[in-house]
């Protein structure tokens, strides 16, 4: 079993630049066979981490996307009613009778992600994405799976995991997760990457973009994150934006804010944010100035006092 450094190296090769603490945590999760809960703002690369982790370990990725109203039938298993009915009809024509046990066999069981991950022949990586969107009942069910690595199908009995999968849960904080689930998991808070790491990420993903463009654009986005935005741009947005600028033939970030206005759609995803970042503000950000006496708002706040 290799340690965190080796894992970090392999994650890097899979296209994910992880810092040492994250690599250690991933390694530890594997070592202790505990699920890892990753929280962080949207777009910091939570899901990408799971995908890279799977490819770094050379394992298959099984993904369960959670949503409101997610139930067992969609998450764990479901009986294939169509096939069962068909089997009954077919047996009606022949003379032999169909036993009930025949109908509730593994052949008629549709595997959904959780069961797929547990019954997989090879060890795999299970990604439970946005677990905070699922409701509390599902979370409680998840506890059994994550604690004992087994799923109970009443008609069949308990299905035990062949290999304990590496489980990653991601959460955006839509709902507060229960303490029980939190304590079952290791925890990692994924923050926005530092300047150097983000440059490395963009370079790794877009090797053809010019260095000057990458550095300036990432610095711009880092400054943009300090702004009071409704939706702070994540790493994915940075990548989109640099890709767009590169396609448009920019070798460096243009000085004219008007040239940027059209491409800012890659970074700013709400109308208020677009409104807030007018050409003047963009120019200030380009020049690297901080937010001081920027708009009329601050002036107005000063006057009543």
């Amino acid at each position: 079993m290799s340690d965190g450094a080796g894992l970090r190296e392999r994650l890097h090769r899979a296209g994910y630049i992880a810092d040492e603490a994250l690599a250690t945590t991933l390694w530890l999760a594997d070592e202790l066979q505990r699920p890892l809960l990753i929280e962080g703002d949207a777009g910091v690369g939570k899901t990408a981490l799971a995908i890279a982790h799977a490819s770094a370990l050379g394992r298959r990725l099984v993904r369960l996307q959670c949503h409101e109203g997610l139930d067992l039938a969609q998450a764990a298993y479901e009986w294939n009613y169509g096939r069962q009915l068909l089997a009954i009809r077919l047996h009606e024509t022949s003379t032999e009778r169909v036993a009930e046990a025949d109908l509730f066999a593994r052949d008629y069981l549709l595997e959904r992600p959780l069961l797929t991950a547990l019954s997989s022949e090879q060890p795999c990586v299970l990604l439970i994405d946005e677990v905070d969107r699922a409701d509390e009942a599902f979370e409680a069910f998840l506890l059994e799976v994550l604690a004992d690595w087994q799923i109970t199908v009443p008609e069949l009995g308990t299905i035990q995991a062949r290999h304990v999968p590496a489980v990653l849960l991601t959460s955006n904080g839509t709902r507060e997760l229960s303490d029980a689930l939190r304590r079952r998991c290791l925890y990692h808070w994924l923050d926005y990457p530092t300047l150097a790491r983000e440059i490395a990420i963009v370079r790794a993903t877009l090797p053809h973009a010019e260095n000057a463009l990458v550095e300036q654009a990432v610095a711009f986005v880092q400054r943009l994150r300090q702004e009071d935005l409704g939706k702070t741009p994540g790493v994915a947005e940075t990548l989109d934006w640099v890709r767009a600028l590169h396609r448009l033939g920019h070798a460096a970030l243009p000085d004219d804010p008007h040239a940027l206005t059209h491409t800012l759609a890659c970074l700013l995803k709400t109308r208020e944010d677009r409104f807030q970042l007018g050409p003047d503000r963009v120019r200030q950000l380009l020049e690297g100035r901080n937010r001081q006496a920027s708009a009329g708002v601050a002036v107005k706040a000063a006057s009543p006092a």
Partner: protein
Amino acid sequence: MPDAMSDALAPLRPAEPLQAIAGFAALLREHGLKVGVAEQQAFVRAALALPVQRCAQVGAAWRAIACHDARSWRQWPELFDRYWMPHRSSGRVRVSGQTRPARDIRQMVQELQQSLADSGASPPGRQALDTALQSAPEAEGAAESDAAPRAQGGASRTEALHDRSLSQWLPQDLRLLDQLAERIARRLRVRLTRRWHDHPRGARLDVRRTLRASLKTGGIPITPAWRRPRRERPQVFILVDVSRSMETHAQLFLRIARAFVQAVDARVFVFHTRLAEVTPLLQRDSANVQEKINAVTAGFGGGTRIATSLADFHGVHARAQLKRSAQVWLLSDGFDADEPQRLAEELGAVRRRGARIIWFHPADQRPASQAVQAALPLVQRFVRLNSLRDLAQAADHLQ
């Protein structure tokens, strides 16, 4: 200094790393982190599993084990440094008496692994280690102290903060406010929706969903779908008066409103001569909320038009949501520039939609203006709100 430290570490007995870890766990618990026996065991396992040359990473590994949410995640670096590297944080104030002078994590991990090798226990020897850990004095009480979280901060201190006016608020006041809002949110009565009132128990067949579900079983409804009684929290509307007469109080009111936006999804409006919704501005925690609200209300003229604003509120903004279960919280001193009888008319219109009206006023006495006198029977309750203490008292009446 480092020499003195290694001197102090020299006579370490094999059991000491475990005690050091137990002491660290106690410090974490003291600061509200949920670290029980299981976590402590995981600490030891992680420290044993890490190769010695990478033992600097043990902090990262332990962080993943001990932290369960973003708050504790942010607390971690300070706690970790305080315990393991007291020389680094020597300039800061030490609150806890836990800190002992000499501790070095690298050495501790080495000691731990060494002790394991010495005792001749092969990797399965972990079990012996676990029992040793459990018998460590501080680990004993772990489960109990977990169940009953200790009070944090002396009672006398928070007491004094209660009365603080807003300009002197500290972060812990804000936390207190959030807790209060949560408490009130829980108290708000969850009511059955109207269609369930006659027969509130049991489930009813949901024909539409049953038919839909039967499609995959060839039209045979094998798994019927049921409707369950639905209970809803009241929708809370908060109307904050930001006129000149309320200037000193509006900030407190907006803070409180912000807490309720997060706790109960309240919708917040500000008004003086006109009404504007500010809920989206309050959904994010940002230092310049006040600036933004100033910007929104900048065009408003002088005077307060409560009745006009209320008419706009129930006629336009909250038209569809003002129903029997809704609550309208009016935060105002009651000085109205509209004709006195109009306030009663507009409040009456809100009341006729079934919503309940609670009036929060900053002064000790309830508003005495003519307009408010006429509207008295329409307001369910008048509550004084000038500090967090008032809100705490009001929490017992709101439902």
